[in-house]
């Protein structure tokens, strides 16, 4: 396989070597050749959508092969199989883990057309100049490197970006309001004995630990110095609380993939659990009530971006830049925002959404008409508002980012024990 790729690449390079060297601003020159390019992208299910690959073929002409995996597998693949992908669609905490392997190459910011319009969270770390930076692996802390080839991150914005931010969101607990029948407003409810045997948490250690920390802090059991970088004692205490809850039968199941979380919720096996936004959408589109409950302690947030494999070069690298610029130009953003995510460049996405959709998803306004998902399922009636409100309200209330800690290996072993307990 890789041999075939190589020979094809070599031929391509030979044919367009001179053109490719100078041609980036003039796509016409190699429009024919780029049609033969295939970029292999892999990432979590959230943004690896076949619709995107189809649209790329239509708009840009080249082929994008998508592989969707769970977060752990994504990390593993990015860290150990650099030749198996051209584009890695990963989260920022994964970037912190994978960047030092040297499997990814930094991107030249000056080639990114919409760079100036990317929201502040990914550049300075602040949504607005007054915002406070949340705990955890905030995207801007691993978003830049001082110079190409560097294996450490830069403290401020530079010309070399590790990941081009694509999507992000603020996560919270999903609930079944019809089965709970009373208001829920704190993370502590996850361990409320009232929901014994009907709660769930996700079995992905680096994300699960953050949800646990939000719960323990909300219960008033633990005061963390930094939830995104716990000490061993904090980790021990957190797991002690959750192990006890597990042994008392608090949890119905743990989930690892998106589909599992949807099925647990839709079947009524679980009424409160950690959940991702489109999973709520998926449950709702089956006609089952499900709320992405805003909680007073704030959100656990995450962000993803596209990274380039270090083996990418020549016309394929140019195609990758083309793809990134296209990604930020609005169509994908609109597509993802209509699922409940946010685009890194919201203003370009606005052109690809109706006024009603923009108002509902981004501004937190009442829907003026039926809101449908990109696949056409009805998600909300006219008059309904989005759980959690507007972009600023939601992203402004982020309590922590998904993170990898210094004590990660210790935490992972503890996590393994927790699962086996």
């Amino acid at each position, binding site marked *: 396989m890789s041999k075939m790729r190589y020979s094809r690449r070599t031929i391509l390079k030979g044919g367009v070597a001179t053109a490719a060297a100078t041609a980036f601003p003039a796509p016409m020159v190699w429009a024919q050749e780029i049609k033969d390019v295939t970029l292999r992208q892999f990432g979590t299910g959230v943004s690896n959508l076949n619709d995107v690959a189809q649209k790329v073929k239509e708009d840009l002409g080249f082929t994008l092969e998508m592989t969707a995996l769970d977060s*752990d*597998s994504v*990390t*593993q693949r990015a*860290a*150990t199989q650099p030749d198996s992908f051209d584009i890695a669609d990963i989260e920022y905490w994964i970037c912190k*883990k*994978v960047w*030092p*392997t040297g499997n990814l190459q930094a991107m030249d910011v000056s080639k990114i057309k919409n760079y100036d319009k990317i929201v502040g969270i990914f550049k300075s770390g602040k949504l607005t100049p007054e915002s406070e930076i949340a705990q955890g692996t905030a995207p801007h802390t691993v978003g830049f490197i001082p110079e190409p080839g560097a294996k450490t991150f830069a403290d401020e914005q530079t010309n070399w970006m590790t990941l081009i931010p694509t999507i992000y969101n603020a996560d919270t607990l999903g609930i079944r309001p019809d089965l709970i029948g009373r208001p829920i407003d704190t993370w502590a409810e996850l361990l409320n004995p009232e929901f014994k*045997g009907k709660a*769930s948490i996700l*079995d992905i*250690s680096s994300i699960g630990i953050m949800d646990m920390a939000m719960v323990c802090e909300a219960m008033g059991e633990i005061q963390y110095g930094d939830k995104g970088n716990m000490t061993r004692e904090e980790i021990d205490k957190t797991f002690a609380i959750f192990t006890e809850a*597990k042994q008392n039968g608090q*949890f*119905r*199941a*743990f*989930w*690892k993939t998106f589909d599992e979380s949807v*099925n*647990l919720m839709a*079947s*009524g*096996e679980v009424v409160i659990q950690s959940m991702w936004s489109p999973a709520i959408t998926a449950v709702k589109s089956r006609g089952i009530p499900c709320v992405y409950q805003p909680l007073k302690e704030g959100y656990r947030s995450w962000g993803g971006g596209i990274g380039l494999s270090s083996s990418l070069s020549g016309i394929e690298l140019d195609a990758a830049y083309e793809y990134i610029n296209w990604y930020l130009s609005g169509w994908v953003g609109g597509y993802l925002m209509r699922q409940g995510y946010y685009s890194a460049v919201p203003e370009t996405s606005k052109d690809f959404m109706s006024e009603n959709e923009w108002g509902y998803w981004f501004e937190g306004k009442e829907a003026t008409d039926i809101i449908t998902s990109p696949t056409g399922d009805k998600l909300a009636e006219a008059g309904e508002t989005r759980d959690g409100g507007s972009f600023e309200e939601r992203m402004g209330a982020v309590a922590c980012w998904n993170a*990898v800690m210094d004590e*990660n*290996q210790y935490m*992972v*072993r503890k*996590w*393994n*024990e927790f*699962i*086996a*307990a």
Partner: protein
Amino acid sequence: MTEVVREVTLPGPVDAPRRKSMGAGLIGWLQAMPLVLVLVFFLLAPIVMIVIVSFWGATEFSIYPDFQLDNYAFLFGSDVTYRVFFATFKYAAITWALTLAIGFTVAYFLAFHVRSQSMQIALFLLCTIPFWTSNIIRMISWIPFLGRNGIANSTLIEWGLIEQPLEWLLYSDFSVILAFVHLYTLFMVVPIFNTTMRIDPVLLEAARDNGASGFQSLVHVILPLTKPGIMIGTIFVVTLVMGDFITVRFMSGSQRANVGRLISNDISLLQYPSAAATAVILLITVLMVIGILLRFVNIRKEL
């Protein structure tokens, strides 16, 4: 496996001194070579690799060559390991007992109660029909059936047998073992059926002529003669259950763990050396179990 190799290579060393020629010995070795190579590359080498890696160290995202006992120290130092190994044995033992009971009954019925051979074959093929779909599908299809609002619970409530849905039907040891039994009973049926088919009917007639009751001839004639089949089935079921991880994960909703899950968790978190160490211990454990089983029956002699 190694037994086979030795047998094939025998002609070499034995023949060589008699004929006083190096040629025959060489030919013997050459004849055995293909099998030796296959076993070295696909059996021995991977195991050696796993053993070596089990002494390596790991960082967040990479592994580095080293000779350290940390992985084993952590493994033996954690009480989770013992609990998980105990759970693995528990699953294996219960699944074995149930598959044996069902498998023997089915094989007995097929061999002694079904008269015509074509009927026997037809019924036997019937047993294999579920195996035309994938393992995972057969397993997952239990989930909607056993769920809180699943078919089993709603039927029982409708019949008035229970008031509240039974929570333990799904995401419990019960559902894990149910899936195991469902998945692996055929591995018991096939070898037992095979051996029962080869029992000479004359022996049963002789037993009856000598006044043995049906039960007596079952215990004293049929059972001893099917022992090799039972043993082969046992080895299949025990090794399959002890090495499994996906059934436990899905059917227990990640609430229970066996050794396979410990390994798969480690791998997914890039902790290959620790996974390798666990795998080595599991391998030794399984080999010991099989060693003990083989003491009861000499399979090679019986077959």
